[in-house]
């Protein structure tokens, strides 16, 4: 049996057994089963990836079962393993296995653990189906499957109204993107008469310059197909306009945020654009659209990240912003750099989320950073893990020498954007530089607010509850140190081990693999699974020195501002926010996207539904239709009352009379 089948189906099997077995099997059995399945899948995935790194593995496809055959539209349940898939395999299975392990500790007190672990494994299965898809429809299966799992996990604590609302929002907003994806698949089938990805990619270049009519307008064929598919990617990867679900998705348990809403699912859009890179590259317009959307998102999300107080929301906006970087890379024709950032980001962003989870765990579910402070002494291991994550995301490193994961990947994106010599690329570059400053600022702001300064959690309701429970029956001691007598504890080993391993990844992933991902002449690694221009890679390495050092400069600047505002002069941020109040309010309220969408989509939909129902169906159709004809009949004679009581017989009579007439007619002729 091909290992890919075990990798994909073990999580599904574990999810089914664990989910249906649930209470009958008990917490421990389900946790061992699901976590075990994921560690096996992870252990099988790394050899495949390392095989591609060393150039020994080769692309192959395992077909399992025919799915649909309708005329010329045929597709199978099939698994394609190539470099791109192998990268995703290690990202998905590694982060998922560690998140499963982490959840042993994090979800320890939850009464509903088997369901949680079954959902996590189900998600992993769907994600693996997505990344191994060899046709667009199976990719769509994975796409919707991860959407379902995301919906179930965001709404895991379904008793909370905010959680179930966030779950619906995530699903429905994603469906807007899915509409684009589906139309893209239909269009692709219309043009190429196939949905097989390899066949489409081979034939795409020949269709450059062709035109097609869509919704009444005439379009460049490859542009419209790529943009439709990209709309799907925008939904899943929370790009500007379709991003509103991601911050709300933080209602889910923190391990879910780490796995789904940071490391894996939200990167599916980037994966799709890279997988289809030969298709996107046949349309310069579509490439520019990808770049502009990515660039706009990375800046927009970073601005919001600087103002939020909820620790998870800061990281969520950071994720949104980092995804923007990946799209910029894909848009300027450097899918290698996009995939590299996806790869390193998975480690350091999962680390940051799990670290935040460890902080939240220690702070008795308090998520507001205003009620943290001075935690580095209380939870030192979590502190160091978060430190590794922060150094990685802000891109600490020395040019041409050594650095952490984000240093290699983010810098390569900025260099690619600069070296692309296009208007869109320059826009991406400058947005990326500004956002790198903001990234450094909000990351260090998070660190300083959480781990430095004096404890401020005596005002936190969550902590007060905890203290109250602890001191039940005891006298209340006076505490003037801002702790209210509450002392955060370090997380258990099951949570610290994943933090340690991910820290390792955040530190060395860039150093280990940057050569394979972004250097010139790495055809033996990519094996044609993504298309990029060798020339662009050479230009990337030849960018001016100031371009290479610019990310470092803005990183230090961001750190300095954060230090000034949150360590040296803590009154400054409030004063500054007061001075630019309109801008601050705009940014703090997330550019008012939610309010806008509520006004132009949600409320009108309900209003229209009500009008269509009460005015259309009842007021017009029923009134002039059945009720109206009844009125006519009632006016004409007293037949109506007969109809109402004896309509059945009248009906049967009419039918029989009609039939008799028919047969007579036939007889006579």
């Amino acid at each position, binding site marked *: 049996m091909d290992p890919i089948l075990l990798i994909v189906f073990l999580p599904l099997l574990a999810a089914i057994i664990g989910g249906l077995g649930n209470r009958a099997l008990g917490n421990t059995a389900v946790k061992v089963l699901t976590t075990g399945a994921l560690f096996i899948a992870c252990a099988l995935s790394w050899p495949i990836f390392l095989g591609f790194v060393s150039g020994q593995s080769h692309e192959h496809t395992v077909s399992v079962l025919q799915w649909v055959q309708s005329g010329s539209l045929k597709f199978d349940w099939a698994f394609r393993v190539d470099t791109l898939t192998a990268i995703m395999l290690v990202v998905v299975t590694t982060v998922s296995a560690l998140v499963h392990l982490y959840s042993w500790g994090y979800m320890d007190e939850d009464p509903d653990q088997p369901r949680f672990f079954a959902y996590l494994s189900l998600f992993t299965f769907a994600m693996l189906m997505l990344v191994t898809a060899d046709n667009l429809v199976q990719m769509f299966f994975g796409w919707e499957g991860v959407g379902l799992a995301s919906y179930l996990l965001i*709404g895991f604590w379904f008793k909370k109204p905010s959680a179930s609302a966030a779950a619906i929002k995530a699903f429905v907003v994603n469906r807007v993107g899915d509409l684009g994806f589906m139309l893209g698949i239909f*269009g692709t089938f219309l043009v190429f008469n196939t949905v097989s990805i390899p066949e489409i990619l081979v034939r795409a270049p020949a269709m450059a310059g*062709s035109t097609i*009519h869509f919704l009444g307008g005439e379009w460049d064929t490859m542009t419209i197909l790529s943009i439709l598919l990209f709309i799907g990617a925008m939904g899943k990867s929370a790009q500007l306009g379709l991003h509103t679900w991601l911050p709300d998705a933080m209602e889910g348990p923190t391990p879910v945020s780490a796995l789904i809403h940071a490391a894996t699912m939200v990167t599916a859009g980037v994966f799709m654009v890279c997988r289809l890179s030969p298709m996107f590259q046949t349309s310069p317009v579509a490439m520019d659209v990808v770049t502009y959307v990515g660039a706009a998102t990375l800046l927009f999300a970073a601005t919001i990240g600087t103002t939020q107080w909820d620790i998870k929301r800061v990281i969520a906006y950071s994720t949104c912003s980092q995804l923007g970087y990946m799209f910029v890379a894909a848009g300027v024709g450097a899918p290698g750099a996009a995939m590299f950032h996806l790869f390193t980001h998975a480690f350091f962003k999962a680390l940051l989320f799990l670290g935040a989870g460890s902080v939240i765990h220690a702070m008795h579910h308090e998520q507001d950073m205003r009620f943290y402070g001075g935690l580095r002494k209380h939870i030192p291991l979590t502190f160091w893990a978060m430190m590794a994550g922060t150094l990685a995301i802000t891109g600490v490193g020395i040019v041409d020498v050594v650095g952490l994961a984000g240093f290699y990947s983010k810098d390569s994106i900025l260099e690619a954007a600069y070296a692309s010599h296009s208007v869109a690329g320059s826009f991406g570059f400058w947005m990326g530089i500004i956002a790198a400053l903001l990234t450094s600022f909000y990351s260090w702001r998070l660190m300083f607010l959480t781990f430095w300064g004096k404890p401020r959690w005596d005002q936190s309701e969550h902590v007060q509850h905890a203290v109250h429970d602890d001191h039940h029956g005891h006298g209340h001691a006076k505490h003037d140190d801002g702790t209210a007598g509450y002392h955060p504890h370090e997380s258990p080993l099951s949570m610290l081990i994943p933090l340690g391993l991910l820290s390792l990844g955040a530190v060395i992933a860039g150093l280990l693999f940057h050569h394979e991902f972004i250097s010139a002449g790495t055809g033996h690694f990519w094996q044609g699974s993504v298309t990029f221009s060798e020339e662009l890679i050479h230009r990337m390495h030849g960018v001016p020195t100031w371009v290479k050092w610019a990310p470092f400069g803005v990183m230090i600047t961001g750190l300095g501002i954060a230090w000034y505002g949150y360590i040296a002069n803590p009154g400054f941020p409030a004063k500054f926010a007061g001075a630019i109040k309109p801008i601050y309010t705009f940014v703090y309220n997330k550019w008012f996207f939610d309010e806008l969408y509520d006004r132009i989509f949600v409320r009108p939909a309900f209003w229209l539904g009500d009008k*269509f129902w009460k005015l259309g*169906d009842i007021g017009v159709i029923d009134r002039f239709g059945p009720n109206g004809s009844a009125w006519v009949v009632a006016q004409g004679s007293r037949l109506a009352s007969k109809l109402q009581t004896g*309509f059945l017989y009248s*009906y049967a009579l009419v*039918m029989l009379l009609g039939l008799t007439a028919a047969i007579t007619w036939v007889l006579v002729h």
Partner: protein
Amino acid sequence: MLGFPILSLMLAVPLVAAFICLFVNAPMARTVALAATLANLALGVVLWCQFDVGGAQWQFQESKELFSGFAWKLGIDGIALLLIMLSVFLMPICVLASQSIEKRVGEYMAAFLVMETLMIGVFAAQDLFLFYIFFEAGLIPMYLIIGVWGGAERIYASYKFFLYTLLGSVLMLIAMIWMVQEAGTTYVPTLMAYDFAVDAQKWLWLAFFASFAVKMPMWPVHTWLPDAHVQAPTAGSVILAGVLLKMGGYGFIRFSLPMFPQASADFVWLVYWLSMIAVVVTSLIALVQHDMKKLIAYSSVAHMAIVTVGLFSFNTQGLEGAMVVMLSHGLVSGALFLCVGVIYDRLHTREIDRYGGLSINMPKYALFFMLFTMASIGLPATSGFVGEFLALAGIYQQSSLVAFVAATGIILGAGYMLYLYRRICFGDHKNADAAAMPDLNLREWAMLAPIAAAVLWMGVYPESFLAPMRNDIRYVETRLAAGKPVGDAQLTAGKPAAHADHVEHGGAH
């Protein structure tokens, strides 16, 4: 082929059982009904196994001249086979779902069994007038079920149903008489191959359309459906949504399309516009419903609009997709009505806001309800996806506008179904009586599990359902080929040379 007339037997078994039910006590009537429907299901399985996929177009044919050209002619193709399977599959489940009926059980079961005979008859009839009898008479037991065992407003509901249907049937009958006169036969396969004059086709098409559009139902002749569903008992709703609505679609694919291909092509935009309006309008209406059954009824109208656009896309994907949507909707909406029935039996209200937090006390129920909700909104690997995907892929080849508007149903559908699910199953307990409801019992489990299995089967390996009808779809397509409208894509050839310098396959070196 079999040595006995299996189709006649499948018509006779429920009819005999119905007769017995009239004379026995309630528990006995339930047993007889269950046994008869299971026996018919077994016969259905035999039918399916013996059906020669890829063989003759018409199989299991029976013919007996009765009088003056009126004949007892039965026979099925793959399309009819699948719809008969759907009917016999849902019937035992309906009998199980009727446990809460306590009034005149014998008559109730008899009405259901007669309806089973008539439904199978509709799909098996090969004589035009025989079809007409089954088609129209099938509604009589439905009227009775709504009118006798229905809710408080049952008289208004069945009366509305009657008014809508009456006009359509009269027009269709007149058209049928004209056709028989013109073609000189009542034999459906001959009529399917008969080329009526183009002018006549238009009138005939419109007359049939009047009947099928009501049955479907299409906007704006859909307003009988929400009332009928709300008033019908659970099993009545299951059969109504599961099978009776499929008669409209069956009518289109058996009569309107192959018999009047030119008129079908001329009237595509009428169908498209009514369908597009239906998807958007009824989906939005579903969003604001407070009554569970009304919500699902309105969603049915939206789903049936996908069937009509699929049928009128005139290509393999569209036609096959429309058929799969019909089968899938039969299972899924039936299951959703059963899900409503399960909690209605406990709390006796359809008001959505009276429930809430059922995931806590009814986790098994919540799981089934989630599965059917997802199937309804077309999640891949459920039956709903395969049908919707193929139907929309079909219509896209004709018109991207229609495909776009019809596909907005996937957003709106997710909206109203998840909003429903949230209000029923999520949240904390709001009402003590809803919180005290017990989870599924064995009987309810036995109703929902087979449908769940069928929904997943059709989603993962739809070939089982696509294969039997492949040749029959191709036949319809051939009939339609001459008048088929040209798609609006107007794709031109690529000019790769001009762009070759932009594309460098660096990775391939």
